């Protein structure tokens, strides 16, 4: 019989009480671990979605986010464009890096008996191969009246190269189907039709200028320089364009995810602290009930630190049991929560398919939560244990 088994028996003496405080730790550990795992899974997914964008500078007309109406007001977005002359100035400022002006519009699409609205993207035929990858078919040739379709559009209307679709009533052959690209900061062709810009201006004669300009800066070191020279050239007097680069956006997105992750962890930590308070409560009751017993043990030769150890063991057992069970639940629960979160975030795409739910960081979160659970329990047990050991034997014997 050791102090440890003695502590274990004391806990068994009040099974309901011990169970409830263990339950508190289980919930706390589960909350902190599964929320951590979920945050991590979302982060991983976001990194997977965004990683292949590369180092891109996107230049949009300033008004698109500015003076007229609210941010995202469709009128401002539709109204604002970058004229051809500005595109040429941007191209010069870009200093030899690939500069791609992009036009976008919405058109009614028909395929067989089905139809709907889709995004139409107009690009110079030569700019398409460096920007977008094909999963089947061919790129557009100069002067081509064909189109390329995004992967989701192709899937929805059952299109492949050689199919024919109607765009605003005019028939166009499908030259190829594009690879899935994901959430990009520049061009999002997954649910769009891509045509040459000449063809685009035929379809949208009222359109003057471009929606945005993309600069592919292959050397990451050069990004700041390119941004600065575009800024100097375009925005000297008034803000004519907004300039963002993908890394900056990536950083902002990561920051949002990190903040979200901290928030989730915070919620978990609060529940653990509450669990700690319940252990504190249980331990204080336990000490109060056993004052006389403590007095007996002290008078027959138990040292102060041995009494302290006895109560710390009790807190440790509660914390350990709660953390182990909570950790086990976190593996299961964190998995399901992550899968559910992935489904919500990637609804309708294929990105969730390859996403890993458990990487080493997720396991680290679970271990951290378990460690935190044990620590919280021990911290909660410290005061009652100290209180128990501090009593003089005579005080304690009187009860």
């Amino acid at each position, binding site marked *: *019989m*050791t102090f440890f088994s*003695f502590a274990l*028996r*004391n806990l068994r*003496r009040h099974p309901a009480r011990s169970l409830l405080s263990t339950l508190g730790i289980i919930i706390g550990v589960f909350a902190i671990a599964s929320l951590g795992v979920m945050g991590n899974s979302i982060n991983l997914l976001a990194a997977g979605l965004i990683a292949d964008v590369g180092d891109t500078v996107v230049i949009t007309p300033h008004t698109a986010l500015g003076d007229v109406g609210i941010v995202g007001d469709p009128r401002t977005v539709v109204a604002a464009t970058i004229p051809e002359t500005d595109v040429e100035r941007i191209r010069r400022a870009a200093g030899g890096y690939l500069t791609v002006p992009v036009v976008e519009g919405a058109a009614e699409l028909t395929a067989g008996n089905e139809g709907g609205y889709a995004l139409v993207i107009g690009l110079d035929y030569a700019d398409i191969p460096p920007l977008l990858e094909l999963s089947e078919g061919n790129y557009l040739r100069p002067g081509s009246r064909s189109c390329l379709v995004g992967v989701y559009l192709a899937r929805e209307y059952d299109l492949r190269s050689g199919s024919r679709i109607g765009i605003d009533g005019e028939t166009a052959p499908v030259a190829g189907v594009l690879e899935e690209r994901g959430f990009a900061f520049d061009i999002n062709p997954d649910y769009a039709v891509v045509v040459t810009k000449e063809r685009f201006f035929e379809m949208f004669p009222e359109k003057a200028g471009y929606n945005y300009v993309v600069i592919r800066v292959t050397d990451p070191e050069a990004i700041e320089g390119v941004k600065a020279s575009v800024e100097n050239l375009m925005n000297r007097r008034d803000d004519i364009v907004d300039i963002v680069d993908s890394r900056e956006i990536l950083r902002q997105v990561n920051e949002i995810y990190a903040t979200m992750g901290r928030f989730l962890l915070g919620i978990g930590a609060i529940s653990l602290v509450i669990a700690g308070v319940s252990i504190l409560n249980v331990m204080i009751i336990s000490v109060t009930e056993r004052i*006389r*017993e403590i007095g*007996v*043990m*002290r*008078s*027959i*030769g*138990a*040292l*102060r630190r*041995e009494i302290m150890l006895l109560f710390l063991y009790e807190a440790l057992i509660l914390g350990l049991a709660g953390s182990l069970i909570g950790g086990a639940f976190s593996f299961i629960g964190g998995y399901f929560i992550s899968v559910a979160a992935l489904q919500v975030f990637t609804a309708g795409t294929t990105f969730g398919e390859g996403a890993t739910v458990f990487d080493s960081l997720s396991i680290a979160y679970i271990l951290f939560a378990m460690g935190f659970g044990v620590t919280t329990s021990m911290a909660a047990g410290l005061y009652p244990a100290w209180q128990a050991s501090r009593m*003089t*034997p*005579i005080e304690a*014997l009187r009860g």
Partner: protein
Amino acid sequence: MNEQEIIIRFTDVSKIYPLPAGDVVALDHVSLDIRAGEFLAIMGPSGSGKSTLLNLIGCLDTPTSGELYIKGKEIGSLSDDELTRLRRDHIGFIFQQFNLIPLLNVLENVEFPHLLKERRGGCTDACMEILRAVGLEDELLTHTPAELSGGQQQRVAIARALVNDPEILLADEPTGNLDTKTGTGIMELLATMNRRGKTIIMVTHDPRIAEYARRRIQIVDGRIV
């Protein structure tokens, strides 16, 4: 054991409890020698200071003034840990309320001080011999205190007090919660232990119980009379 050796010496010991309503003098300049192998009964009315005297001998408390030597050590100068080790290794306690640990069975209760001293469990041959000596049947050993009668519980308590082979046994009204017949059995047991060389100091207000002691002192208002 040398009958002449003084195992406990009070030199002008006072114990004062400071209370909001005024200090309470529990022991008033007491001097007392107790020799090894004695069987001493401390008698006196309630509140006379006899329990305070016993607590001081038991190293559960320290004097306010004066000097108290137990086995040659002045206990006022000892730390809490040193006092605890002195209790553990040299003093056995027998309480009126028995004070067994309810969670532990008979054997474990008896082993407990041994565990505290030796840092390992297990009832040694000496421990089994003690259990037989106090008259506990083997089938009782796995019972918890709540399943025992008062007399049986006090026998377990005596076994527990003896397990570390202390020189001094302290008994605070050992028969106070027992009927006369059972009490007589317990007193016979204590007398036997005294014959085997234990120094026994017993607090009682019952003259018939005090008959078992070979020396009796009276305490009134904190003074030996």
